[in-house]
């Protein structure tokens, strides 16, 4: 009994290393996407203390806009550009209409406002584009769709070109973001705002500009995630669920930490796949991916209440 649960899965892993590698690869690809979404969350949270629940629906909205524009006959790459314009418009609107009147309200009110945005975008998306599933315009965007078949240890390992592209693009995007945050004036302003609101305001950093900027960055991230995930699973409102996956990533990594979002995303992506394949499906009836990440993050948080990389919580009375 104990052997079945605690030893046999590991024996299986070593018995078929190629399969293990396949599982880890799949986990890595979803993990990097979780990390991307989590990065969007972290940027917004750091600069405004808003826990942006609308990130998931922004992914869907961006993907729907892209597909919808292309369906109207706009060439693929121009649709990408236009979608970015739409996401920028969305960022400006959200800042003007929702966030500005709510400055200084308690966190939970801002959080609820982002859920209001989520509902609005769900309704708007379904009204404009319809609720049915759509196919992402993978080939039109020039994303390769073949696969490499490798044979490590005499086994079989299939790497989809699509997944490789996703990993490369996501990595580049993360690196670009890090460079932006560390080496440009705007990026440093975002970080300053994250460190201390009032001090940042007093040296002349504009709150409004930065908020529009971070929401726009979150929109770009949403578009990239939407394309990547849409190419794997089709574009539908079910995509919203992947945003929930970014939440345990945030818990695990810490709400303020960019490193945490990346490390947490990769960890959760791989561990949940491993758990699902080696424990979930044989013993628990499968589909454990819906909760595993949350329970894992919960256990980590019991020992480190601020997450692995979060700012140390100092409480004063």
């Amino acid at each position, binding site marked *: 009994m104990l052997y079945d649960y605690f030893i046999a899965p590991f024996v299986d892993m070593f018995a078929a290393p190629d399969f293990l590698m396949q599982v880890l690869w799949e986990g890595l690809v979803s993990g990097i996407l979780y990390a991307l979404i989590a990065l969007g969350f972290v940027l917004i949270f750091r600069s405004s203390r808003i*826990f942006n629940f609308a990130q998931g629906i922004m992914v869907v909205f961006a993907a729907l806009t892209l597909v919808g524009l292309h369906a109207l006959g706009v060439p693929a790459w121009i649709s990408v550009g236009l979608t970015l314009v739409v996401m920028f418009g969305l960022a400006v609107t959200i800042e003007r*209409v*929702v966030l500005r*009147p*709510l400055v200084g*309200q*308690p*966190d*939970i*009110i801002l*959080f*609820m*406002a982002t*859920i*209001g*945005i*989520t*509902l*609005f*975008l*769900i*309704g*708007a998306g*379904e*009204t404009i584009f319809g*609720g049915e599933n759509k196919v992402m315009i993978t080939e039109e965007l020039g994303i390769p769709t073949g696969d490499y078949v490798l044979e490590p240890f005499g086994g079989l390992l299939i790497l989809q070109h699509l997944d490789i592209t996703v990993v490369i693009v996501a990595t580049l995007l993360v690196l670009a973001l890090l460079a932006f945050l560390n080496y440009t004036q705007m990026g440093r302003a975002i970080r300053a705002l994250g460190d201390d609101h009032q001090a940042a305001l007093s040296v002349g950093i504009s709150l409004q500009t930065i908020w529009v900027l971070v929401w726009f960055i979150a929109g770009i991230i949403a578009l990239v995630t939407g394309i990547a995930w849409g190419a794997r699973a089709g574009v539908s409102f079910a995509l919203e669920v992947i945003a*929930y996956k970014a*939440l*345990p990533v*945030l*818990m695990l990594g810490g*709400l303020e930490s960019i490193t945490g979002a990346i490390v947490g995303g990769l960890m959760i992506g791989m561990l949940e796949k491993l758990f699902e394949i080696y424990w979930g499906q044989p013993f*628990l*009836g499968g*589909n*454990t991916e*819906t*909760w595993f990440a*949350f*329970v894992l*993050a*919960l256990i980590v*948080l*019991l020992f480190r*209440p*601020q*997450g692995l990389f979060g700012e140390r*919580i100092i*409480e004063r*009375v």
Partner: protein
Amino acid sequence: MLYRTAGQFKTSYKADQALFPVRQDAVLLIAILIVAYVIFPLIASEFAYQTLLIPVMIYALAAMGLNILTGYAGQLSLGTGAFMGVGAYACYKLITIFPWMNPIVAILFSGVFSAGIGVAFGIPSLRIKGFYLAIATLAAQFFLVWLFEKWAWLYNYNASGAIQVPNTEMFGIYLTGPLASSVTQYYLVLVIVSFMTMLCINLTRGNLGRTWKATRDMDIAAELIGINLMRSKLIAFAISSYIVGVAGALYVFMWKGAAEPNLFDIPLSFQVLFIAIIGGLGSILGNYLGAILIVGLPVVLNLLPAALGLTISSALVEHLNIMIVGSLIIFFLIVEPHGLAQLWRLIREKLIIWPFPH
């Protein structure tokens, strides 16, 4: 004028701390209770029971449970839907295992199970705070819904994976199941909800309520003045989950009639959270106002196009509804972040000093 308090003298501390220090509040409440107990049953149609009266009560009860935890004890929870599910499944198991059991007893007892599970998931709140705790309660949400789906014992190994409410009766009157009439169910819900509301009002006014408020406002300071945080938080989780569990049992047994696991998924949690926040955190009245708004709004919006003579497809109406509800939530948050209860509080203040501005 109507609300003038002049002439209502208090001669003892007891009178000053009474539930209704202002006489008009009591009169207003009695009027509302008469409307709810006597007038609605006389005039309500089947449609009104099923789309407005019963759901408003049940949602208000669920929001009250959440409000105890979030509004009074300050622990943000996003797992309400799953705890409602625990109540519903517990009630279903109780009634199918003990068919002789009185359904009212079963409904009230099923809350005990969700209270137990609530405490278990509340333990992390001793270390985790704020949004981290909110995400931690999502662990309960996703895990429990997964469990409802995978643990076949819970739905008696039905092929459909859903629970069906059986017919049960008391004194020859059907209380649950397809044979029960809406009036019976309405009265049953109303009695249970009124009783729970009274309980909540008195709990939050008493020692326990003050302990919770201290914990909410600043837990370290609360600890310093001698409040046992562990006790205070876990009791909040227990009572909140108990009420939410009872609301869940009522939700399925008195209203829906059948339930699939995904009924208790995250949209339900958010709906209850909306009611609590739009109504006003830290207020009992607010839950009712919020429930009326959130339950009533889609009904009104559905009827509106027909009333205006417009022909819009039902799918479009539904999508527009979601959009409008979303924007109204934002609108209400901007206009009055402390909720509808605060609006009532302001109106009442104005009425008391009317016609003077101060």
